[in-house]
């Protein structure tokens, strides 16, 4: 399309200034994350909460996983195993699609036995680099 070239109005100068500010902020933040960035591989840790819900004969155990490393982890697998007092073994698995640097994700494992009365093992089993 053919364009005309009139003088820039005050409104246009203001919108250009705002746009320049937004684009500069994006450039600055990308550079900032680059300079301060951590290039270490993912460091994944999972913690559980004592705030267990007991609903309809099932126990909901909250957990939080955090990536304190520098790189993003993909397909993070968390495995929980509960050995109850009557030696029943219950296992639960969770998969988190992506976990960026310093990102936290939370969820719950569901057991038929009370996790506080058995031996609970919860660990991050695997991940892959994107």
């Amino acid at each position, binding site marked *: 399309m053919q*364009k005309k070239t009139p003088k820039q109005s005050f*409104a246009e100068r203001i*919108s250009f200034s705002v746009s320049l500010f937004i684009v500069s902020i994006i450039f600055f933040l990308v550079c900032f994350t680059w300079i301060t960035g951590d290039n270490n591989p993912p460091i994944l840790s999972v913690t559980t909460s004592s705030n267990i819900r007991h609903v309809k004969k099932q126990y909901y155990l909250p957990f939080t996983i955090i990536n304190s490393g520098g790189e993003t982890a993909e397909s993070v697998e968390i495995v929980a195993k509960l050995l109850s007092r009557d030696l029943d073994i219950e296992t639960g698995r969770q998969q988190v699609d992506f976990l960026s640097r310093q990102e936290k994700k939370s969820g719950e494992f569901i057991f038929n036995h009370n996790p506080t009365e058995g031996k609970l093992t919860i660990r991050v089993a695997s991940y892959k680099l*994107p």
Partner: protein
Amino acid sequence: MPTSNQTNGDNWRQELEEIISGASGGFLFGIPLLYTMEVWFIGSSARPPFLLIVLIVTFTIIFLLNQIEGFRPQESATLPGAIAETTETLAIGMVCAGLMLFILGRIDFQTPLLETLGKVIFEGVPFSLGVTFSRSLLSGEEDDNSRSQKPSLSAKNNQHKSLWQDTLADFSATLIGALFIAFSIAPTDEIIVLSASASPFNLLIIITASLVVSYGIVFASSITNYKYRRQQQGLFQTPQSETIMSYVISLLAGMLMLWFFQKVTLGDSWFVWLRYSIILALPASIGGAAGRLAV
């Protein structure tokens, strides 16, 4: 003779119209990629050097495109003007993409900075290209001659008949536009993923965003044929009624598409139907708004 206040007011109004037109083009071009999980994942895992390269390459491409296109009808014939327009295009694209990512719950205040930047930049690229092409995407200029004759022709006809004909034309155009954009999104898992993370408050925000963007595309854009459209008859011809009715059509079309692709079944609860349809009605209403420009 216009006073300086009037001129100033006109400048601001023109500026706002150009920005809204540009943003509308961005939504039209960028919305299909906003509903693509892979783009979120690429944004989540991108490293800062790569993001810088993406920004520089996008800036260069938009700069080149602005030599022949651009969301402004003036200005980019000079080098500083082209740089300014490119900066504005990128800013509009990034802000629109960021807002939509926030509304759809893909970024929030807990999201790490690098992940937020990655998603905004990757989703911002198609939005920025849409801003560049907005005048071509939304313009109805080429049909002006034929359109200017249409009201006089319809005046000769029965007014009642014309009212229903125009309503039917708007209905069909909305439906076709909604199908054009949303039919390829309806069978994807993104609808389920987005729906799962949306609270009732988020759904209300998504409904509001659908109405605002749809209204923006058809009515607030200075480069569309809205002046002509307001001379037309039919049940769609006040801005509010057109936006609301078109949204309802998009919502119902969304439900049908989801049912067609077995994403919802008659055994599902009404709330599942409603949630999925509200999520799909966002791209559908944007498509519907674009479709009505063609009427």
